[in-house]
Structure formats: structure tokens, C-alpha cells
């Protein structure tokens, strides 16, 4: 029986194998530079230019400059990776042009890494080899036992711990891939050996001994223990597994971010790209696709958490055969940037997810709706669409299957409400992006009144992985109600900001402390804000709760698109609640009264409170108004807008009371409720505060204690910031 799709895929994979043969050659030195909006902002382009100059000047032909997307390690960018043949890959943080010169001469030419600039490297020499033990707690891993046993065995044999690093990783995503007879043999631990890129499957002490003797000491790969599985995050861990920020994550949606060149179809195909699509088109069975998604328990990653399989089924059973599929890339939540990163770093994966979705629901056309503020994401998706068309992956007769489907991009224009699906549809139609009443839901009557499925970027990013590794595998990663992983954009007062992908059900504290490195400046955690302007606050006392749709909702917040802002004791909850309401008020489209007027009045009351003019009755008014707005608004924006107010009232009522009753802002943030004083005992009379005061309200002469004229002071805080003797008090 002819298998045209299979043949098409095989021909493409063979071509890619040949064209990448050079890159994968043994002797090749690979230098990797990130290329995404955040990397560019940090200066990665100047770094890449400098590297090109160095490579050219050296005359070496064996150095390859590899451009990749962004790994999501924002606060340390630009990141530069160096891979010498047979050596552990090394990543450098905050690279600039001077550092490029050092890295090039000392590491690439000289063979010695510049240790003090290595990403997240504390001190001491770098290891030469590494064994990473998979210790995922959610996928029935074996815990730290085997790793500790192995470390003890190393000590017994007297192997130097300086050259060999024994580390732990959260998840390679290998669990559940093993064939049945292996699974029945009992729990196994996966061990990744770097730089040999070998994955071992270890079940007992003899296996550990075999790896120690054969692999570490003997220098031979122990073939009988080699895992047959090809876990999804292997390529990522192989490059980034030594960094705690990365190896405590479970990368599924972000598996290729920072690994592939986002503009190269070949590299995506090399990571098994379009294999899932080939499988789907070969089977020609949309029910199988939806069945796998049902098993995967995949829920919409845009915030609603609605079952993707159910949504696709509803569109599929419509009588109307003209159907559309839309990718919602109108990422408007302040503090969330995972969609941008995925569109910029792994565009082909999103395109593949959309094509599969189009096939499953029987659509003929699909749309990317991307906000105009993301020019690079738009360019990369446009380029990916054109490349796919040129290679028979989009357009007519996709992969020789006889099925036609095409994609196009529509730009947003800076309206937050367009993230709401009915508003988004209006915007694609070229109208003002105002929502309408649901039902009918878009799966009934959507774009131009035809059945339409709208999913978030991250939802599409998971599709190919689920079909490639099975729905059961994906479900196992998550919780009973929601399968898989979720990407969070970790920002705010946390040491390591960036993108974090963890299994659903991971405790919040683990994300903030283990991966994020805790609160900055040695301050105490106060709350974690999730879900953006539609979300709420999780107080520090609840930080051990599991991240999943239902628990977050119960705590008065939402998952939302995955923004996670860490707030410390320096943050005033009334002020932050005001910030979110100001956002929603500004973005309210004005169509329905509860949202238009409700958010405005909520903002007025909050402003009054932060100015020290609040009254006790304001708290009741806030609650009543918030509930009204929640119950009667037309769309999700208005219904969710009061969440920050309600959850801050619920968890931080004391702070509201302090503002109203004591006229005091505990976080010393609300300008109207603080003033600055100079402590005469600490002031040495250096005059720096007086010189920096914009309104010249600080009196005093040299070597004498200064005094602030409270009547003239504008409370800008300059004196507080510039005083070198901590003599200015904020009270």
C-alpha cells in the first residue's frame, strides 16, 4: 500500500540529515548566540558581530556560529554557548564584546573556559564530565537515592569529584516512554551522561556500578544500559542540564527554545519536527487526534483552562463545513512573555500545531493573531509560513496527502480586550475589537459566522509533543485534572527572572525559590501575583499550594496566561491592586456599563485610599462594586477585572485598614502617606542630599545636620536614594 505522506516525510528527513551532517561533524566547534527580542535588547547582536570578526580573523573553518532563540533566562542575557568537541558545553552570562574576545582566545582557541563568567557558576574549576540523575517527583521517579548511592560509590573508588559532577534534574520527560516489559521490571532512574550524550536507564546497584566502572573509569559506553527511549527534553538538557534554573524545569512547550535556529526548517525537522503532522496525515483520522488530546487532559493555556479536545470536538461536529482555526498571540497581560518567546524561538512548532488543529477540526484556513508590539515574532512566523509553503507543508496537497490548508497573519493594534475571543474575531474581521455576548460560542458561530476554534500559542506548542509521545505520557506529567506542563513568566522581586516550564501541580514555592532563586535583596516574600490583571494574589502563607487551575481559583486568583509576579515586603498591596485596576479601566472597551463605570469607580476609591483620604465604608463599597462588576459584565475582561481588588481585600485587609485608619502605608510606598526625615545623629553634613533635592527644600550647611522642610518637600525620595550614611529615614 502506497504511503505518500510517509514517503514525503522520509525524503524531507533524509535531505535534512544530509544538509546538517556538516554541523554535527565530530570536530566541529559550535558557538551559540541567542536571537530574540530580549536577547537583542541585552546586546546579543553586537556579541554575534564581534564573534564573526574573531572567527574570520582566526581563519579557522571549524567554528560554526549557531543562532538560536531565547532560553528564557532573561536576567542573564546575552547568553553565549561554546561547545568544543568531546567537552561539556559551557554557557556564559551577560556577555559583552570584551568578554567575547576573552572567551574566544582563552576558551575556543586555548581550551580553558573563562570560569568566572560561566552562567550560574559559583566558584571553582568546571567539571569535565557530568552525570545527571532524573529525579522527577511527579512521574514516580526514585528520588535522590540512586544519586547519593552513586556519589558514595565514587568516593569509595577514590574518583576525584572535581572532574566529575553528579547532578539532579527534574524531568527529562522519559517516564512512560519505556515499553511495557521494561516498565514491569520496576522503577527506573534515567541518567544523562554528558558530554557523551548518552542516556542510561538504571534499575539497581549493579547498574550503577557498571556505569561507574565502564563509563566513568573505562571510558566506554555501557551499551546494555543505554535507554531506547528518546525523551523530549534530551536535546535541551544536553545543552543546559548543568544549570539549576533549567534542570529543575520540565521542558515540553519550550523544548526547542534556545536549541534550534528559529529560522531554520531543517533544524526543526532534525528535532523530529513535522513527524507528528506526518503521522496525523498518514492516519487521516481526526478522531484519533482528538482522542489523544482527551487522554492528554490538555486544557487551554490562555487562561480559561477549557478542554482543548472538547473545543475541537464542538467545532468538528458543526454542519457548516467552512471552519477556521485561530492562534491567539495577542499576549497583552503585563508581565507575561511566554507567547512571544515561543513565537520567536520555535515558530515552526506553533505552525505545526496549527496545521494539526486545522486538520482535526476540518478547517481550510487558519489565522495567527499577533500583537503589533512583537515585530520579531511577526517576522519569524511570516518566514516560517513562507518556508512551509515552499516545502509543501502548507498550501495545496500538504505532504502529498491531498489535503489543503493555509495560514496567514493578522496584526493586533494594541487593544488588550482583543485577547478575548469574540473581540479577537471582530478584530480579524477588521472591526473595532469589542466583544459580544456568548453563547453562541465561536465554535458555533465565530469568524464570519463560521465555526471557529481559538487557542493560545502555548496550547498549540504542546500539540506536536502530545501526538509524538502519546496523550497518556502527557497526562502523566501533570495532575489528575490537568495534564502536562505550564510555562510561567517569572518576574518581579525574584533573583532569576525568566521563563519557567514546570509540570502542573508543582508547588508555587518550588517555582519561586528553587528555580527563581528566592526574593531579591534578602527581603521576605509577601505574595505571588498570578494571572495578570485578571488574576489575584497568593499570600506567602499559601506558597506551598500546587499550581493548577482549580487550586488557584479557590485561592481567589487564576492561572491566566501564566504571568507570575513575585512581590516582597517592599510592595504595597493597595498600590498594586490600584495598578491592575488602572490597567483594566484603561483597557475596558466601553461597550458595557458595569465594566466601563465599575472599573472607573473602583479606581477612584483605591486612589482615595492610597492618598490617605479613604473611609472605612470604602471597603464595603469596593466589595459590592467588585461583585457587581464580576457578575454583570459582558466579557471576561470586566468579569475578571475586580479579581486583584477582591483577592487583596481577602488576604491583605489589614493593609487597607492601615491606609484608612492609621493613615499609614506599611510598605512605605504610597507617596501621600510617607515623609522623609533626616536623622541628626547619623547626618554628617555632606550636603549631597541638599544638592540633589529638585525643590531645594533641604537646609543645612557643611558638617552640620540637615533638615527637610516638610511643607515644600515633594517626596521624590532623591535624598533617600543618594544618602551614603543612611541618615535619611522614610517614615
Amino acid at each position, binding site marked *: 500500500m502506497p504511503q505518500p505522506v510517509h514517503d514525503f516525510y522520509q525524503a524531507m528527513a533524509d535531505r535534512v540529515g544530509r544538509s546538517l551532517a556538516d554541523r554535527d561533524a565530530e570536530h566541529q566547534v559550535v558557538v551559540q548566540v541567542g536571537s530574540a*527580542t*530580549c536577547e*537583542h*535588547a*541585552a546586546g546579543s547582536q553586537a556579541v554575534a558581530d564581534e564573534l564573526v570578526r574573531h572567527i574570520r580573523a582566526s581563519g579557522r573553518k571549524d567554528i560554526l556560529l549557531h543562532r538560536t532563540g531565547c532560553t528564557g*533566562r*532573561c*536576567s542573564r*542575557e546575552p547568553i553565549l554557548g561554546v561547545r568544543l568537541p568531546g567537552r561539556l558545553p559551557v554557557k556564559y552570562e551577560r556577555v559583552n564584546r570584551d568578554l567575547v574576545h576573552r572567551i574566544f582566545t582563552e576558551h575556543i582557541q586555548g581550551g580553558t573556559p573563562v570560569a568566572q563568567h560561566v552562567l550560574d557558576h559559583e566558584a571553582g574549576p568546571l567539571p569535565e564530565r557530568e552525570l545527571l540523575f532524573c529525579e522527577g517527583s511527579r512521574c514516580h521517579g526514585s528520588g535522590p537515592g540512586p544519586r547519593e548511592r552513586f556519589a558514595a560509590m565514587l568516593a569509595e573508588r577514590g574518583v576525584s569529584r572535581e572532574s566529575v559532577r553528579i547532578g539532579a534534574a527534574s524531568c527529562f520527560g522519559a517516564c512512560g516512554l519505556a515499553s511495557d516489559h521494561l516498565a514491569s521490571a520496576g522503577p527506573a532512574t534515567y541518567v544523562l551522561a554528558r558530554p557523551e550524550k548518552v542516556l542510561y536507564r538504571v534499575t539497581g546497584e549493579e547498574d550503577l556500578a557498571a556505569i561507574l566502572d565502564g563509563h566513568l573509569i573505562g571510558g566506554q559506553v555501557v551499551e546494555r544500559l543505554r535507554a531506547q527511549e528518546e525523551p523530549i527534553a534530551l536535546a535541551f538538557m544536553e545543552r543546559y542540564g548543568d544549570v539549576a534554573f533549567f534542570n529543575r524545569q520540565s521542558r515540553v512547550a519550550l523544548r526547542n527554545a534556545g536549541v534550534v535556529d528559529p529560522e531554520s526548517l531543517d533544524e526543526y525537522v532534525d528535532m523530529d519536527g513535522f513527524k507528528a503532522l506526518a503521522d496525523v496525515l498518514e492516519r487521516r483520522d481526526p478522531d484519533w487526534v482528538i482522542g489523544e488530546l482527551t487522554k492528554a487532559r490538555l486544557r487551554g493555556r490562555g487562561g480559561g483552562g477549557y478542554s482543548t479536545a472538547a473545543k475541537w470536538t464542538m467545532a468538528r461536529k458543526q454542519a457548516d463545513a467552512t471552519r477556521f482555526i485561530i492562534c491567539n498571540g495577542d*499576549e*497583552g*497581560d*503585563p*508581565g*507575561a*512573555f511566554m507567547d*512571544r*518567546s515561543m513565537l520567536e524561538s520555535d515558530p515552526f512548532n506553533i505552525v505545526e500545531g496549527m496545521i494539526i488543529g486545522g486538520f482535526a477540526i476540518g478547517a481550510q484556513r487558519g489565522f495567527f493573531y499577533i500583537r*503589533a*508590539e*512583537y*515585530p520579531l515574532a511577526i517576522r519569524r512566523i511570516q518566514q516560517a509560513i513562507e518556508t512551509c509553503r515552499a516545502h509543501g507543508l502548507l498550501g495545496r496537497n500538504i505532504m502529498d496527502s491531498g489535503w489543503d490548508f493555509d495560514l496567514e497573519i*493578522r*496584526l*493586533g*493594534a*494594541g*487593544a*488588550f480586550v482583543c485577547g478575548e475571543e469574540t473581540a479577537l474575531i471582530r*478584530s*480579524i*474581521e*477588521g*472591526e*473595532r*475589537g*469589542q466583544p459580544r455576548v456568548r453563547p453562541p460560542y465561536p465554535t458555533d458561530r465565530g469568524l*464570519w459566522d463560521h465555526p471557529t476554534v481559538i487557542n493560545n500559542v502555548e496550547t498549540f506548542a504542546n500539540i506536536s509533543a502530545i501526538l509524538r509521545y502519546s496523550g497518556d505520557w502527557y497526562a502523566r506529567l501533570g495532575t489528575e485534572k490537568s495534564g502536562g506542563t505550564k510555562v510561567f*513568566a517569572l*518576574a*518581579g*522581586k525574584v533573583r532569576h*527572572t*525568566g521563563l519557567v516550564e514546570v509540570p502542573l501541580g508543582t508547588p508555587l514555592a518550588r517555582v519561586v525559590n528553587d528555580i527563581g532563586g528566592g526574593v531579591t535583596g534578602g527581603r521576605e516574600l509577601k505574595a505571588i*501575583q498570578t494571572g*495578570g490583571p485578571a488574576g489575584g494574589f497568593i499570600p506567602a502563607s499559601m506558597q506551598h499550594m500546587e499550581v493548577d487551575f482549580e487550586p488557584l481559583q479557590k485561592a481567589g486568583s487564576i492561572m491566566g496566561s501564566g*504571568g507570575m*509576579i513575585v*512581590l516582597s515586603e517592599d*510592595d504595597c498591596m493597595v498600590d*498594586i491592586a490600584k*495598578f*491592575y485596576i488602572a*490597567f483594566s479601566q484603561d*483597557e475596558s*472597551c466601553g461597550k458595557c456599563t458595569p465594566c466601563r463605570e465599575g472599573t472607573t469607580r473602583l479606581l477612584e476609591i483605591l486612589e482615595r485610599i492610597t492618598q490617605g483620604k479613604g473611609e472605612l465604608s470604602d471597603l464595603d463599597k469596593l466589595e459590592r462594586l467588585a461583585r457587581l462588576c464580576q457578575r454583570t459584565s459582558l466579557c471576561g475582561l470586566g468579569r475578571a477585572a475586580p479579581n486583584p481588588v477582591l483577592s487583596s481585600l481577602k488576604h491583605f485587609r489589614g493593609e487597607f485598614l492601615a491606609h484608612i485608619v492609621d493613615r499609614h502605608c506599611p510598605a512605605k510606598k504610597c507617596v501621600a502617606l510617607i515623609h522623609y526625615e533626616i536623622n541628626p545623629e547619623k547626618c554628617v553634613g555632606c550636603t549631597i542630599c541638599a544638592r540633589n533635592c*529638585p525643590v531645594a527644600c533641604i537646609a543645612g550647611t557643611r558638617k552640620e545636620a540637615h533638615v527637610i522642610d516638610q511643607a515644600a518637600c515633594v517626596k*521624590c*525620595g532623591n535624598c533617600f536614594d543618594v544618602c551614603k550614611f543612611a541618615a535619611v529615614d522614610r517614615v
Partner: protein
Amino acid sequence: MTTCPHCPTDNWPELERGYRAMLPGDVLAFIDGNRDREHSESLLIATLHMVQDHFGHLGPGHLEAVAQLMQIPLAKVTGVATFYHYFRLQPRGRYLINVCLGTACYVKGAEKVAQKLMDELGIHFGETSKDGVFSLESTRCVGTCGLAPVVMIGEEVHGPLTPGQVPALLETYLARAAEEMAKV
């Protein structure tokens, strides 16, 4: 095209010439190329993006020309142009400064940076400096929260910024503007 099926006025060819003269060639080609496509009116936002990319803003004449050539009521074109924040109806300076006031930037002190920019430039949000070099606007999250607080000037993102770094940053752009002016 000499006759317009929707507006059988006797002076359409003359009007059309006038309107076509107001828009750049790529916009005209885009409108013409999509005229007969199904749902071509849905490309209004894309068209307005192109016009704004070219002129830097959407003037009353531009809106009218787009309305006439796409055969969409001017009321609707204006409605769309005023609904979306991204569209500017006033001309702006050579460099658009967008201060990110997203959550991450806000908690890291974006307000102080914004205040410093206003002090240095002597303008508020939505205004253009007297020399026509800078326009100041605020934006919601440019998606580089790891670098908070950030300011976007043109298409370049700068961060993390302190108020103290603002004057030097503006200087570099003033110098660049002077250089570009010298070339012209």
C-alpha cells in the same frame, strides 16, 4: 479602474486620482491586490498599519483616502483607528519613547524613570518635544520583563534603566538625530 460600482458619482476618476496620490505605492498595491478577495474589508487594520508605518501617524486625509479606496465608510475607518492604542492620530517625533508600565517594570520603579523622562524632555505622555525629536508614550509590557524597568526608543529596547541613566540615553539619540539631519 474608472468606475466605482458603489459610488456612481460622475467625478470618481478625479477623486480616485486625488486619493491615490495621498497614499504610498505599497499601500495602493495592497489595497488593489486584495480588492476582489473574499472579506477584503477585514484587511482594514492591516492597511492602517501600513499607512502608519509609512507616515508615522494617521492623519485625517490618510483615513479618508483609505476609506474611499477600500470603499469602507469613513465613520468606520475612524472608529477603528481611534479604538486601537497602537494607531496615532497626531504626528510624532523622530524617536518614539515608549515607557513600559507593565507590572514587572512598575514594581521595579518604571514610574521614576518615566518622571525623569518627563522632566528631561519637558513633556507629558502623548506629547512631542519642541524640537520634534522625541515623543513620549507609555505602553503595556513589551515582553522583556527580565530587563525591567525598560524603555523602548524606536524599535530598540533599553533596560534595566535607572533615572540617572536617562539623560545620557537621550543624549545618544539627540546625537544620532543630529547626525541624520546633517546627512539630509
